[in-house]
């Protein structure tokens, strides 16, 4: 009897736990967002988070985008060669980069770099009483630590993705022209013909959602970390894993929303 019911009970407990976590995360996000319209707003924390998320993530995002664009061009050339449609490479590169690879790869890179850092920093503040110290200094920790980071993440990732889009296309262009023998003017014309404003805009909307999710998961896990160094380590792992999973889930949902017609 137990052999049948126990796995179902465990599944039920896991589902309830997941729903509870989702609810707690949503309430956390709502509270943080409510501070956007209630002064004061901590501009210094916002700008330092913006620089940390946007500027210092630029090298890793740029390199990822550049090589991704180059790899897509190479792979497409090999695959499309079988059907003699190599001319579609420029269109494939620009659509893949702007619609998918730019936002998703930049998001995953930022989740690993910035989401982990946010979680570790806030988690360390939690376990060393620094968050309690903020409260005793008449400063709301959500308003001070979380709200500026959420806004910074939401605004920084679209800027990064814009750079990633340009560099991804440049990567495809460089390989196609230097290695595969495409004419530069033909490649650029094909790129511009394939690209629609909507592709870039949807990529940037995705990036804003991903930036928000990365900052949210980083702050939430750090803020709720317990138990010293081990707790901070677990929170950091949970922040990166959770942000990566949510990012891919929302990528699907947003793609379905914008491109399924």
């Amino acid at each position, binding site marked *: 009897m137990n052999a049948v019911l126990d796995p179902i009970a465990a599944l039920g407990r896991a589902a309830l736990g997941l729903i509870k976590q989702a609810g707690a995360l949503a309430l956390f996000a709502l509270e943080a967002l409510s501070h956007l319209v209630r002064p004061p707003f901590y501009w210094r924390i916002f700008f330092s988070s913006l620089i940390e998320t946007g500027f210092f993530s630029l090298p890793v995002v740029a390199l990822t985008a550049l090589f991704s664009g180059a790899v897509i061009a190479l792979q497409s050339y090999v695959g499309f060669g079988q059907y003699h449609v190599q001319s579609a490479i420029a269109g494939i590169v620009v659509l893949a980069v702007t619609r998918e690879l730019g936002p998703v790869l930049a998001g995953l890179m930022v989740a690993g770099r910035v989401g982990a850092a946010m979680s570790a*920093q806030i988690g360390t*503040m939690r376990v060393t009483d620094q968050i309690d110290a903020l*409260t*005793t*200094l*008449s400063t709301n920790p959500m308003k001070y630590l979380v709200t500026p980071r959420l806004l910074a993440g939401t605004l920084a990732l679209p800027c990064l993705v814009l750079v990633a889009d340009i560099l991804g296309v440049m990567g495809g262009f460089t390989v196609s022209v230097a290695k595969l023998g495409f004419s530069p003017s033909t490649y650029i014309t094909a790129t511009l013909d394939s690209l629609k404003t909507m592709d870039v805009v949807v990529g940037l909307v995705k990036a804003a959602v991903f930036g928000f999710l990365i900052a949210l998961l980083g702050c939430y896990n750090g803020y709720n970390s317990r138990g010293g160094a081990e707790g901070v380590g677990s929170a950091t792992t949970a922040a990166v894993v959770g942000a990566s999973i949510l990012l891919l889930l929302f990528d699907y949902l947003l793609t379905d929303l914008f491109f399924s017609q």
Partner: protein
Amino acid sequence: MSTPPVSTPKIRIRGLHKAFGSKIVLDGVDLDVETGTSMVIIGGSGSGKSVLLRCILGLIEPDAGTIEIDGENLLTASRSRQDALRRQIGMLFQNAALFDSMSVGENVAFGIRAKHSDRNGPPPSRAQALQMAGDLLKQVGLDPSVGDLSPSELSGGMQKRVGLARAIAGNPNIMFFDEPTTGLDPIMGAVIDGLIVDCVQKLGSTAIAITHDMASAQRIGNRAAMLYHGRLIWQGEASELMHSGNAMVDQFTHGRREGPITMELRK
């Protein structure tokens, strides 16, 4: 026949209860702290001392009971009134809890700006606050040049001094000290205690300190109380701590293995 006027204690706690799951941490604590008194609360690890302070500070929500400051119930007051009442409290944490993303000077300046009341005019600018932070650092026996250092570059004793400077930044009329001498050598512990007494006297504050250190308790406090299993089992003058006449207090203050208090390694 007229009744004598009864003065309202600065802090009055009645029937305070707090449990974490099945573990009862505070079990009906009643405590009065008169204005200008330095109350020292002693008790073993897990007796509920820190939880008591955190309940007053609003860091933990009690399950039942009342906490009054100047006769006003903190737990039923509006959010803004709670903030206003708690704005008059300064806290020195056990590990100082300095913000490691800021310099020492910025830590103290943060306290000055955060605790500034709008009733006293516009808040000081960052530059002004940093200058005022230098004066506060001097007040706790540190050279103002320390303000440029990072908290991690300071010794434990210096961190406690900076934490004290930050705690007194808003001229609080209530001060809490969470094990202020833990981790310090006896001489540095005595120095910190001296600074605490000076600050409390200078500000005319009411203070609550929790400690395991009997020498520190007698230096800081003029009143004392002992918590055991979430209950206040004794209150009296701090000078009576070492000969209270209460078997539990005597066992604790003299550090005896034998007595009514038994060590529970696992509960």
